[in-house]
Each structure stands twice: as C-alpha cells, then as structure tokens.
C-alpha cells in the first residue's frame, strides 16, 4: 500500500459534509517522507484543517486510503503515533505546566519518575525550564504554545500535526517561534505536517509547501523549498526566499475562484463544519 519510506500516505482521499451537499476535500493524493516538514497552505475553507484531522483520525474521510506509519490512520491513532498542536494551546488551567506536558505520558501509563524525567527534557527543549510549576494562565501566548508543543512531542511521536499553531500570535513572536520550531524539529527528528495561512511562514519552515484551493478542497500544486537548513533570520532576506514566496502566492492565485464565489464557498463550508461539529 505504501512504501516504508513514507510516514503519511494519502490516496484519493475525499470528504463531503452534510450528506454529500458540500465537498470539503476532493481526490487528495499526498506522500510525506520521514523527517519532512510539509506545510499545507490555502484559503479558508480549502479543507486544510480537515485534511490534518483526517490524517490524525479525528475525522473520517468519506472515501480514500489514509496510511500513517505504514498502518491505517485509526490504528496509528490508537498506537499514539502522532502528537497534535492546535491554534489555541488547549492547556488545562487546573494543571501546572509540567503536568500539562505530562498528560499524554499519564495516558501511556508511564511511572512518575519517568514522567518527570521526560518533562524536564521537554522543558529544556522548548526553553521553559523554571516555569514547570506555573499555571498556564500565568504565561504569555507564545510560552503557552511552546508548552503545547512540548506536550505534543513528550511521548516522542514520529509525526507532529500542527493546525495553525502560531496563527493567534503577533508577528514578532511568530517569527521567533518559527525559528524555535525548526530547532525543535531538528532535535526531535519528527516529521511535521503544518497548516498555515501565512505564505512566508510556510516557505521559511518547510521542505515542501502543499498549495491547496477551495471548492472543492484540492491540492493545486506543490512547491519544493530548496533553501538550506539551518534557516536563520537572514533566510528571510535571500532572493531565493522571495522567489519561493512568489511561487506559492502565484500557486494560490491560480487555484483561486472569482472573489465573491470564493467567499460564498467559504461561508457554506464554515456553516457545514459547525453543524457537523
């Protein structure tokens, strides 16, 4: 079905909401190789978050094959093969930072000693050592999101799914966390699928940018990002960076519908997504 060289393999994945009335995703084919950093970018309503949730078996596709780590997505979820980060940090107010990070480890039945050892490592990784006993509401938005990333990576999943994790942060915090994320990605050895609205963010982070378009949600192009790692603040000033940003932007424009139609498609999909919870 999929070669061992892929972490995620999607074949003909489609999703329709509201009894087939709205096609959220249509004929998606995508292979993600180990240690890749793949961004999904597209207008609202192109189904990029839906696609991420299908990979995580949080939503079932209407048709198509989803293989994660060489097994069906459902099996991969039960085996805890991936960690996920949302736009909101989704930290539990009643738990301290370290207990938030340890939550998945509790699920896995790790001993207290092993948990605290791992939490310490994760706090070092996301550079939050010293904040273990703080409560989430005592941290800034950027710090909260770092805790969320630490939690997602705490049990060393092979795959990290990120749904617009920095979308709610200001530009400066976002750029700093982009750099941190790359460092964490390299250190953890995980494969990342990253949903974003931001073209520069996608180009800066990714090995590949998957450009999606709406109505129906589909992949309209893939941009290979050949900028060398490690990427730094200077990467954003290189001519090649701007070329790639332009390439992604043109890809988005090519897949775009006339403006009013797109707005309508967006609206419909939002309504349907809300209804289907």
């Amino acid at each position: 079905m999929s070669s061992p060289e892929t972490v995620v393999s999607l074949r003909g994945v489609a999703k329709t909401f509201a009894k087939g009335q709205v096609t959220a995703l249509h004929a998606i084919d995508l292979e993600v190789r180990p240690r890749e950093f793949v961004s999904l970018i597209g207008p609202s309503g192109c189904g990029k978050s839906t696609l991420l949730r299908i990979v995580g078996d949080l939503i079932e596709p209407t048709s198509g094959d989803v293989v994660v780590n060489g097994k069906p997505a459902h099996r991969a979820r039960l085996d805890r093969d991936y960690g996920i980060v949302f736009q909101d940090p989704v930290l539990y107010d009643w738990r301290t930072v370290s207990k938030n990070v340890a939550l998945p480890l509790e699920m896995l039945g790790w001993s207290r000693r092993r948990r605290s050892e791992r939490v310490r490592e994760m706090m070092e990784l996301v550079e939050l050592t010293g904040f273990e006993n703080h409560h989430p509401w005592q941290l800034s938005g950027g710090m909260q999101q770092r805790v969320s990333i630490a939690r997602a990576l705490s049990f060393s999943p092979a795959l990290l799914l990120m749904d617009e994790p920095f979308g709610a942060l200001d530009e400066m915090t976002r750029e700093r966390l982009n750099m941190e994320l790359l460092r964490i990605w390299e250190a953890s050895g995980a494969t990342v699928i990253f949903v974003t609205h931001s073209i520069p963010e996608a180009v800066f982070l990714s090995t590949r940018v998957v450009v999606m378009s709406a109505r129906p949600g589909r992949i309209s192009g893939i941009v290979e990002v050949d900028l060398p790692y490690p990427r730094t603040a200077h990467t954003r000033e290189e001519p090649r960076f701007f070329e790639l940003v332009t390439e992604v932007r043109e890809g988005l424009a090519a897949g775009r519908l006339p403006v009013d139609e797109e707005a309508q498609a967006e609206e419909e999909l939002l309504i349907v997504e809300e209804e289907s919870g």
Partner: protein
Amino acid sequence: MVATVAHAGRLRVGRETAWADAVRRVALLPVVLAVLWGLWEGYRALWIETGWTWPFRVDDTAMPHIHAILAQLFEPSRLNGPTLIHVLFDAALFTAKEAAVGFAIGASVGFLLAVVLVHSRLLERGLLPYIVASQTIPLLAIAPMVVVGLGSKGVTGWVSVSVTAAYLTFFPVTINALRGLQSADARALELMRSYAANRRAILWKVRVPASLPYLFAALKISATASVVGAIISELPSGIQDGLGGAILNFNQYYISEPKNLWATNLVAALLGILFFLAVVVAEKLVVRRAPEHVA
C-alpha cells in the same frame, strides 16, 4: 529572565491585594451588622412611634429588640431547664448532622446522575424532564412518606430526614454538574481522542476538572438547601431533637414568648451560613484556575 521578574512582581501584588481584600471583608462584617441592627431598631421605633399598621402593626411580639433576643439566649428555656442557647446548640448540632448527611447523599447522587446523563444523549433527553418534575413535589409531601417507608425498614428517623434533604439538594448539583461536564472545550476532547483516551480518562482528566466551577456553584446552593431541607423535613416527621422541632415548639408559644422563635431563626441562619462557608473553603482548596474563571 525579564519575563520571570515581571511575573514574580505581578504574583506578589496579587497576593497582597488578596490579603487586603480579606482584611477589608472582615472589617466590613461589624459595619454590616451595625447597619442591619440600626435598620431593625429604627423601623421598629418609627412604626411604634407613629402607630403605623401597614404592612403590620409593630410591637414587642412582632419585632422584639435585638438585644432582648440575644439576652433571651442566656435565659432558661423553661422553668429550671438549661439555657436557650444550650438547647438551640444541641438542636443545631442534630440538624447539622442530618443536613450534612443529606448534603453528602444529595451531592453524590446528583453528581453520579450528571455523569450518567453526560454519556448518553438518550438518557439526558429521557430522564431530565422527570428530574425537573421531581422538584415540583413539595418537600412537606415527601417527608412523611420517606419517614414511614424507611421506618418500616428499621431506618432511624434522622436518616430519613437526611434522605428527604438529599431529595432537595441533588437537583442543583445534577443540573450544574451536567452543564459543567459538557463545558469541556471541544479541542481538549479532540486532544484526548488523539491520545486514544478511553471514556474514563476523558471523564477524570478533562470533564470533571472542567465541571468543578459549575459544581461548586451548585454545592453552594445545595449546602444551604440541605439545612432548610433538614429543618422542613423534621416538621412532618415528628422529630423533636432538631431545629425544626424547636421551631415547631416555639411557634406554639409565639404570642407569649416571641424571642425564643427569633433566636431559633438566628441559629438556623447561622447554621446555613456555616454550611455555605464550608463549601467556599473547599472550593478555594480544590479549584485552581485562572483568576478570571473563578465562579
């Protein structure tokens, strides 16, 4: 580093204001009591002076002096008997026992019911109307049935009173706990799903903690309701040892000695406040949330 320092500063300020707040509240208590005392005595004096009879005629029977009510506490409750405060203290202790057990039963049953309902949409739709309907039956009608029913099984009277009080206290707990269990963030539930968490883990690690502010709001209502429920349930149950018995007794002699009933009301109110405060303290110990979330 900068963040840490700024942060510590903010925390310290928070703690100081909390202290100042507590001091202010304690200082406020005598002021509030003095104002209440002034209102009572002022109203009394004005109505007696002018002879106004609306809404009712005021005299020593309708509104005794506050100091007379307090003094009455240290008078013998009957000829050569113990002082009134002694009698009321014993009665309050007895009622507190009934109310505490009733509160515990009601809170447990109420919470369990909410846990069951949150897991089944069908049960929630099917059972909730009857749970609501259960509260439309007056406690006074339930109490004798429970006392007789449980009595025939050899259950002592005061336990029956607790059961009746529980009938009153479970309801707000069920309604609020259900709401609280359902208040868990959709993303938090999705996150648990990504960990392949089972229902029990989701319940204990997400739903129950999320429900605590709602639960404690209900427990505050239930705590005072359990005292009221216990007192009312004593009346038709023929139980003499509690505050309900005292109220019934002093009611009969109200015309000749109104201060006894007023003093009993005062003690009953204090008991209710005590129960309420116990829940407030428990909440402070249990619920750790963002300050703006505290219910």
